[in-house]
């Protein structure tokens, strides 16, 4: 069993690789969404979400995508949460 700290470092490494090459500094500026002819329908948004949630990186470590479950797990285990916020509605 890989120790928790090392699992985190592996996940962080994978995440870093997935997010590179991004802007050198993470600035909290809203990114302009890709140009769209009209707003996506709910069906299109669901397709985009499902595509995002089936990306490989989520399978390579124990990512929890449910906020309530993440907090529950953190309380049960006494561990911190590392949170990665992303989006699927635009690129």
């Amino acid at each position: 069993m890989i120790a928790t700290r090392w699992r985190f470092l592996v996940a962080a490494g994978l995440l870093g690789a997935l997010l590179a090459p991004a802007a050198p500094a993470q600035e909290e500026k809203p990114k302009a969404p890709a140009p769209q002819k009209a707003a996506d329908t709910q069906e299109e948004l669901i397709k985009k979400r499902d595509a995002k949630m089936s990306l490989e990186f989520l399978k390579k470590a124990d990512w929890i995508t449910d906020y309530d479950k993440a907090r529950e797990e953190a309380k049960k285990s006494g561990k911190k949460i590392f949170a990665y916020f992303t989006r699927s509605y635009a690129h």
Partner: protein
Amino acid sequence: MVLFCHNTSRVETDPYPSLLGEKGGSGFPYLVFMDQNGNVIAKHQGNRSVEAFQTTMGRADEFLALEKKAASGERDAKLDLFLQQLELRHFNLEQANAKRKELGQLPEETSKKVDGLLIGLEVSQIVGKIQDRKEIAKVGGPLVKMFEAGRIPTGSDARMFWSVLLMYAEETKDIPLFEKLVARLEQDAGDDPRAKAMAESAKKRLEKLRE
């Protein structure tokens, strides 16, 4: 470490659609460490190497250690913790003011920092009500009052403050207000290239508004 991935999907039935904003984020990707209750305890900024993440994780551990020290009653630790909690937006404005009262008389330097952070918090709460540009009118009035009272935020809250105020003056075609905003931006820009660029861009918008 519990690994949590939140995806903003805009699917109406997905839970926690505003979690990014609630946790202090305004763009993607946004990477933070949280405690077991979901309070942000360190924000990751800069490069995304394993070493950089470890550094941020260290800051998260320091925050938790500071919480323990503050809980034991150490006054300096309580003040440091309060400042960090304000920066990490653990409180809404009402809670923050109540906490400040609870701490009693603050050293002058700390009091100034707290005042600055509370102004930033107030601005982010006001601006947080806007979903898109059409709603600017909702928040313009309170922001104008803050501007006229000299209660002007610094840092990233300042950029949001000025952007929304300029948009509001533009939308309402309030040229005198726009002129005052430009004058203040120019006065405060100093040698900061970003601030100077913002003032310059505002001047051009003012010229267009006058046409």
